[in-house]
């Protein structure tokens, strides 16, 4: 058995959702778009590609954060291994989709987004613009939901 297969067979850890090819590809798409495509070939594609990646990556990221929180607050004190909770995955996906809608649809949502990021990382400039056309990417969240469900299946 290869080392990778050995690692996959190891007991599940919180946030393991992020270690699969799909979220890594989504993150790579965002990074490629932000650091390569936008500066060199700006256009409609570069304007939407990050949003496509975000609509997959962000819900999965939130689900992973919630898994970590649940493990630290609930499972670890009881000395038991991670319990995969579908509710947390659904909450991550729902909150991710709702947040995306709020900041893309309402200028006030975009401003609030920038305000709390600025509070989180003082001294760094952030910028977000409400652009309802970005909501065209929202169905990608469905892929994230499907991916999370598949992850739960594989963990049984």
């Amino acid at each position: 058995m290869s080392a990778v297969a050995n690692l996959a067979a190891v007991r599940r850890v919180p946030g393991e959702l992020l270690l699969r090819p799909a979220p890594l590809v989504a993150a790579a798409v965002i990074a490629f778009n932000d650091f390569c495509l936008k500066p060199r070939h700006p256009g409609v594609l570069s304007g939407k590609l990050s949003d496509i990646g975000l609509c997959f990556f962000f819900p999965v990221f939130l689900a992973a954060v919630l898994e970590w929180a649940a493990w630290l607050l609930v499972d670890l004190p009881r000395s038991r291994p991670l319990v995969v909770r579908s509710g947390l995955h659904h909450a991550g996906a729902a909150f991710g989709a709702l947040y995306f809608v709020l900041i893309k649809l309402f200028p006030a949502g975009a401003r609030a987004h920038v305000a709390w990021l600025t509070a989180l990382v003082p001294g760094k400039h952030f910028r977000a613009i409400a652009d309802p056309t970005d909501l065209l990417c929202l169905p990608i969240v469905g892929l994230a939901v499907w991916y999370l469900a598949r992850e739960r299946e594989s963990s049984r």
Partner: protein
Amino acid sequence: MAGRLAHWLKGAASLGAGGLGAMLLLADTSPEHEDCPTLAPFKAEFDFVTDCEALPAQGHVVLDWQGGDPAEAGAVLATQLRSSGLDASSAVASCKEGSSALLGIVFGELGVTRSVICSGMTIPWLGEQPVPCTEREPADAGLQPMPTACTFIVTASAAPP
């Protein structure tokens, strides 16, 4: 023992991926990774409007103004420019009709010498039908200041030392 080590390794990899993901999400919201099509409609029509490629080098400041005292809008823009260490050089603004005086005041305050003023909201996210934009001197601005929603895009260059 090996299984335990692998478990810890996987946990560390998961944390690392989460940390990198968080940094990526933050980076995506930084001004230098702004969606470039923002300026595309103006770039096509006016040669001095900076293209996306040049933005990180030349700098720009964007203000989505929801209405209010024009002088305050100018002051906010000026503060943003100063905090960026930039000097205003040219500007694009899109406002509701009848607000060109506001733009004149704001651009005059900033010392902008070349500007495009679009009467009517031509920036797609503001949701109104585009009308032709015109290049004007700030002094040509209208008669009465009319505080209203505007989007200003001020392109700028590094301030002299």
